[in-house]
């Protein structure tokens, strides 16, 4: 595209009052680029002006200096034009009052001593905007040749069936894969179900049968029982799926990556590449490589993972004090439900009636008051439900619930209230210390109860509130033919639940196109699972339709760009394949990455990782950001007797950049010597930008992004964590150059922590000022 540039400076919103507009206009003029100012650019007249220039003068590349790109993006959106927004409002004038950053008097101008920090900041930002647009192009969508709009649902329990119905209602064809011989899952194995509608007070008969019938009525829903997924290959829009019978071995079973201990020889030395391939092939003997597509495989557009849960087996020593495994009348809630579903509640030991039952919600012992693993509000509710069974079966029955946490969220509180009213149900908080034999019954002892220090209760049976273990604990389930492995990676921080962010992105797993719902995400009631299924079905549909338009699904929904690789220079280092948080890249046997654009979330982590710097996006690449860095003016002693230091801040555009804007809106002030550049994710920061900035004479560089670690907030899961590792490495390199490693830092900020911005920025600036200027300045 032949670019015709135009710079437009808005003087409204206080910009014109603070800055020397004429001086700003001088920047593009010097480059021979046309520039116009307007007092109210986002107003009707202002936009007309822009449209007129586009139409009459053929301007197609606009640098609009005014408000932040986070506002008025719809106003300044012109078809076929590249638009860059220079943030003079939030990050220049609103955050830097003239009272602290005074303008120059007539005498001070050009005296070689004084300078106007604010004007310098604004001029740099305009230069950076101009440099950027020169290096970027309008993106074009990446389209698949053919696209399948079918949805694969893994799991035929209440969640899977509900998701299938929702998707079918929206007009999509669905296939449900169920490993058992019939649909229904755990929801079909219960006596009664928790209330699912107003007034949420009493138990209802299970609804699963009705749901199965409802699903059967849709011609678009195909059910495959006795089936599991052997492999899912390809990418959203064209997943090639091989199904098989449980236990069967096929050549399209997915190969597994080598476990770490097999990657070394007997002396612990790492194997070389050839040997590695040999071991790998041996390890996966009889299985086709991930890049080989099953010619008989079925095509699907997206996958809903509703594989559900299995009851926790409560193995090991941790539960011996509760008599579990030793006393036959101590059972799990699941076993109790099985007994209840069969008929009256009787004791496993002798078949006698169990009229006094103790329900234990937390294993107790020591200071730990946590519940059993993989529990949640549903296990509290199930205890209430099962207590009711005891009362249903025996009018003189007694049910006791010992809990540390009684969780009855939402309207389930009504259920709790109604159960509480039952004269024969007794609840108390307390630490259960032991369950022991007492005659032909049991005796339960608890401490710190609401009734007193120590109490004992006689019981015929004891029920432990064991958790609902997600299927992903035992098995990858999805069996993806991805180079990074068949399941979710580093999933231990989610206790193996299929998740990618506990708070912000439900349904979204670490793999694009795979949407989790129900108890595979966390323990849930049937009611919650049904609602969850709707969410995942909508996500699957969004994915298919985004792929259909060649745009990203999430979190950069609608983004048309995708990473481009200049393969001629690829050294097959595999860094991009390994570091991509979403497993979007598969390398071939030589190690050359194979992009899968519809798996990609456009985070740019691969671009940050590539040592050859051959990965980039149409509107975001090594060169575009590198040129912005180079456009920053670094004054030296040649310019002023005491030149200001210069800092670069690379800020994550998801959280940190908005936080900066909000700081400006709240008139919070910070150093005017820092130049901020928004990046897609800290993971996309390539160290070359930092090296360039330092060699250019900049004095300090910091990254500002999301929290990383177990409770990360990174929108791209691993971006900020990878950046942290890279920054640590760069620190080592700096030391070898006799540069203080403190000059490069990374800080974490959440979107609501805008009030911390001034402190973060100023502390860093002051620290570097103490170190003194970059010794390479001026070279």
């Amino acid at each position, binding site marked *: 595209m032949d670019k015709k540039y135009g710079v437009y400076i808005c003087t409204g919103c206080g910009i014109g009052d603070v800055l020397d507009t004429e001086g700003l206009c001088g920047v593009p003029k010097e480059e021979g680029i046309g520039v116009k100012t307007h007092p109210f650019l986002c107003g009707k007249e202002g936009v007309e002006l822009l449209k007129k220039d586009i139409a009459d003068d053929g301007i197609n590349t606009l640098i609009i200096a005014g408000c932040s790109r986070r506002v008025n993006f719809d106003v300044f959106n012109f078809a076929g034009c590249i638009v860059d927004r220079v943030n003079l409002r939030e990050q220049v004038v609103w955050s830097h009052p003239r009272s602290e950053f005074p303008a120059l008097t007539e005498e001070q101008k050009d005296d070689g001593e004084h300078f106007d920090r604010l004007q310098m900041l604004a001029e740099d930002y305009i230069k950076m905007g101009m440099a950027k647009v020169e290096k970027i192009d309008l993106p074009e969508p990446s389209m698949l040749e053919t696209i399948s709009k079918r949805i694969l649902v893994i799991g035929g329990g209440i969640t899977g069936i509900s998701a299938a119905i929702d998707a079918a209602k929206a007009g999509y064809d669905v296939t449900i894969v169920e490993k058992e011989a019939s649909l229904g899952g755990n929801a079909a194995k219960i006596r009664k179900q928790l209330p699912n509608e107003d007034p949420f007070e009493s138990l209802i008969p299970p609804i699963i049968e009705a749901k199965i019938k409802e699903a059967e009525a849709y011609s678009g829903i195909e059910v495959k029982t006795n089936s599991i997924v052997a492999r899912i290959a390809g990418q959203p829009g064209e997943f090639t799926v091989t199904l098989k019978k449980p236990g069967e071995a096929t050549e399209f079973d997915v190969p597994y990556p080598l476990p770490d201990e097999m990657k070394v020889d007997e002396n612990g030395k790492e194997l070389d590449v050839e040997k590695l391939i040999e071991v790998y092939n041996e390890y996966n003997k009889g299985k086709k490589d991930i890049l080989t597509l099953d010619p008989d495989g079925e095509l699907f557009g997206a996958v809903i993972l509703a594989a559900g849960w299995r009851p926790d087996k409560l193995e090991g020593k941790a539960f011996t004090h509760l008599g579990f495994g030793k006393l036959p009348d101590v059972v799990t809630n699941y076993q109790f439900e099985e007994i209840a579903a069969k008929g009256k509640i009787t004791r496993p030991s002798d078949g006698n009636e169990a009229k006094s039952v103790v329900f234990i919600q937390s294993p107790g012992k020591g200071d730990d008051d946590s519940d059993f693993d993989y529990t949640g509000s549903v296990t509290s509710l199930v205890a209430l439900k099962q207590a009711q069974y005891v009362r249903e079966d025996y009018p*003189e029955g007694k049910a006791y619930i010992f809990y540390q946490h009684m969780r009855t969220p939402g309207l389930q509180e009504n259920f709790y209230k109604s159960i509480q009213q039952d004269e024969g149900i007794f609840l108390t908080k307390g630490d259960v210390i032991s369950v022991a034999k007492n005659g032909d019954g049991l005796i339960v002892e608890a401490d710190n109860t*609401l009734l*007193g220090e120590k109490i004992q*209760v006689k019981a015929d049976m004891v029920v432990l509130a064991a958790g609902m273990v997600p299927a992903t604990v035992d098995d990858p389930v999805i069996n993806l033919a991805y180079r990074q492995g068949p399941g979710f990676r580093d999933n231990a921080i989610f206790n193996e639940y299929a998740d990618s962010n506990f708070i912000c992105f439900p349904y979204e797993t670490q793999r694009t196109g795979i949407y989790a719902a129900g108890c595979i995400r966390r323990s849930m009631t049937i009611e919650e699972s049904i609602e969850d299924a709707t969410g995942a079905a909508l996500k699957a549909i969004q994915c298919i339709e985004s792929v259909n338009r060649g745009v990203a699904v999430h979190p950069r929904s609608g983004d048309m760009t995708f990473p481009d690789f200049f393969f001629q220079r690829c050294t097959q280092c595999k860094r991009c394949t390994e570091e991509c948080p979403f497993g979007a890249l598969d390398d071939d046997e030589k190690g050359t990455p194979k992009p899968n654009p519809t798996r990609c979330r456009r985070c740019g982590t691969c671009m940050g990782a590539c040592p050859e710097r051959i990965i980039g996006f149409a509107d975001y690449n090594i060169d575009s950001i590198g040129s912005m860095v180079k456009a920053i003016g670094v004054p030296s002693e040649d310019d002023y007797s005491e030149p200001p230091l210069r800092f670069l801040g690379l800020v994550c555009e998801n959280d940190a950049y908005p936080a900066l804007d909000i700081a400006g809106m709240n008139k919070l002030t910070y150093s005017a010597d820092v130049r901020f550049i928004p990046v897609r994710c800290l993971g996309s920061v390539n160290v070359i930008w930092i090296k360039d900035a330092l060699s250019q004479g900049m004095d300090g560089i910091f990254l500002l992004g999301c929290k990383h670690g177990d409770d990360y907030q990174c929108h791209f899961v691993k971006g900020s964590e990878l950046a942290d590792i890279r920054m640590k490495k760069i620190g080592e390199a700096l030391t070898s150059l006799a540069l203080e490693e403190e000059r490069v830092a990374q800080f974490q900020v959440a979107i609501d922590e805008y009030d911390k911005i001034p402190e973060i920025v100023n502390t860093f600036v002051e620290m570097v000022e103490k170190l003194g200027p970059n010794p390479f300045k001026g070279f």
Partner: protein
Amino acid sequence: MADKCLVEPNLEFIKEVVGLGGDTLKKCFQCATCSVVCPIAPDNKPFPRKEMIAASWGLKDKLVGSMDIWLCHNCGDCTTMCPRGAKPGDVLGAIRSYAISEYAVPKFIGKAVNDPKKLPVLLGLPVVIFLVLGFITGLLDFTPGGDKIVHSNFFSSWLVDMIFVPLAAWAVVVFGIGLKRFVNDMHENAVLEGKTDKKKLEIGGLIRGLFSVIPTILKHSKFSECDENKERATAHLMVFYSFIGLFIVTNIFFVVLYVFQIHGPYSQMNPVKWLANVSGIALIIGSALMIKNRMGKTDQVTSYKDWYLLILVLGLGATGMLTEMTRLAGIAGLSYALYFIHLMFVFHLFIFLPFSKLAHLVYRTVAMAYGEYGNR
């Protein structure tokens, strides 16, 4: 050890407390708001939350012998603040009723007092006794005549005393038996739950405790600590003092009659008569106020027991005063009839005192004395 902490819910107990006006007890979810707002509860092991959970678990032994249920003055602050509508104040009231019938023997009388179906029998009882004894002894004269109305001509003072002196003794004995068990239970419970620093119960100390709580009781200072049922304090105070007044008057009458052989009715100028009249009027106003307060409080449960007692007290005062007024007005027939009814009320008061809610005056006093003694 094993026995002490073994808890066995008593479903019957729960049902009974529910029937006595504690039907909300299972609503409690142990937030402890009530214990925090209660103006009377001490900081150490405060009530009424622990009573609420003990009640919902049907732990009868923990409750009937607890002094805390008596320390509560049913001010209702907790009931107003409880987020669950569990009405702890009312539940404690129901538990108190239960405790009274638990300690008063023989139990069937307690049951009868609490059973509306038994009311006709209870009403008939004094009538039958009066008539039978009156006829046998000839001390009941349905044609008293004379130009002055003298009630003892109709219902001889000998007959009155023949009936009421043993009745008073009965009340004392029933209370005595109940209190003995109550005090022991209360001490055991307090030691078990760490509500006292005394290991062994000493009667001397308990009596000293009794003397030190008397000013508190006379001033009704516990009542005025409450917010919610403030207006109740006045009514209660009036009824309370009028009973004391009438108690004194009755004793004077008794002494004067037997020692000085002087027969009533006294002149209206006599200070004893003043006390009697003032007390009578206070009793009527006080009990009427109580009834009005009860009716105004729709959120507070009023059980049959409550009504029985309120009407008994009001009737006692009203028939007493009306008897006197009709006597002064010279309406002989009516006055004698009213006197008869008045004596029926007095009969009920005496015989059922240890079984009815009125027994609280004894139990609460003793519990407060124990609390004082045991450093609650």
